[in-house]
């Protein structure tokens, strides 16, 4: 028999208020990607046939550079969340799952940092 009160036993065992965080940020990032990705695809389609100088000129415009940075950050964040779910669903072995989850997050972080830096280098350089 425990001398702890029912309230004492229940404390700290409830929701950590984190349960829907992944679900929520995946939805919010997806909503942000609707205008950003449509803008990106149609803009790049108009760049068809453009040479190095023309593409560089397009990226250098402040509005384009800012939109590209927002697009890349949201894209890689959303991709990271999605790939995480796929790994959690299909990689059964616990060690392999942990390793592939960490690897996926690192690769996403590297690609996001490198591509955003590339845009800034072109825009500011």
């Amino acid at each position, binding site marked *: 028999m425990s001398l702890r009160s029912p309230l004492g036993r229940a404390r700290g065992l409830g929701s950590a208020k984190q349960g829907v965080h992944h679900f929520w940020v995946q939805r919010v990032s997806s909503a942000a990607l609707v205008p950003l990705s449509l803008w990106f695809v149609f803009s790049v389609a108009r760049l068809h046939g453009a040479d190095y100088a023309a593409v560089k000129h397009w990226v250098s415009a402040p509005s384009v550079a800012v939109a590209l940075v927002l697009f890349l950050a949201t894209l890689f964040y959303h991709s990271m969340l*999605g790939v995480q779910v796929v790994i959690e669903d299909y990689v059964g072995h616990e060690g392999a799952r942990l390793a592939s989850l960490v690897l996926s997050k690192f690769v996403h972080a590297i690609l996001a940092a490198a*591509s955003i830096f590339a845009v800034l280098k072109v825009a500011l*350089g």
Partner: protein
Amino acid sequence: MSTPSSAPNRPLSPFMLGQYYRFQLTSVLSFLHRLTGVGLSLGAALLALWLIALAGGPWMYAAVARHLTAWYGQVLLFGFTWALMYHLGNGIRHLVWDFGYAFSMKAVYAGGYIVAAASLLLTAAVWALAYAI
């Protein structure tokens, strides 16, 4: 060795697929959502490579652009365009469900056909813009 009389004289998986098993639009679209999502993650890596090459200078950019403008690069980009348009459209379909709407069988199928048609139309619009202008 004689065949046991109880040997199954019937088609077994994967021969069931297509011939005896009827695919449902709903499950195929659900599967495609995940498949295009994973594919687009690879597309995002290609986008990063393109931008890094652009920052790397004319020589590095030409080395990447040469492949993207080749026929196989254009086929790949066409595939990424459709994958994005499909994932985007079906993502909106998911957002509608998240708000609690369109759960009837009729609405689920109607939404599926709309998303499939919209993905093809938007892909055609993007490539018409690219090649017509």
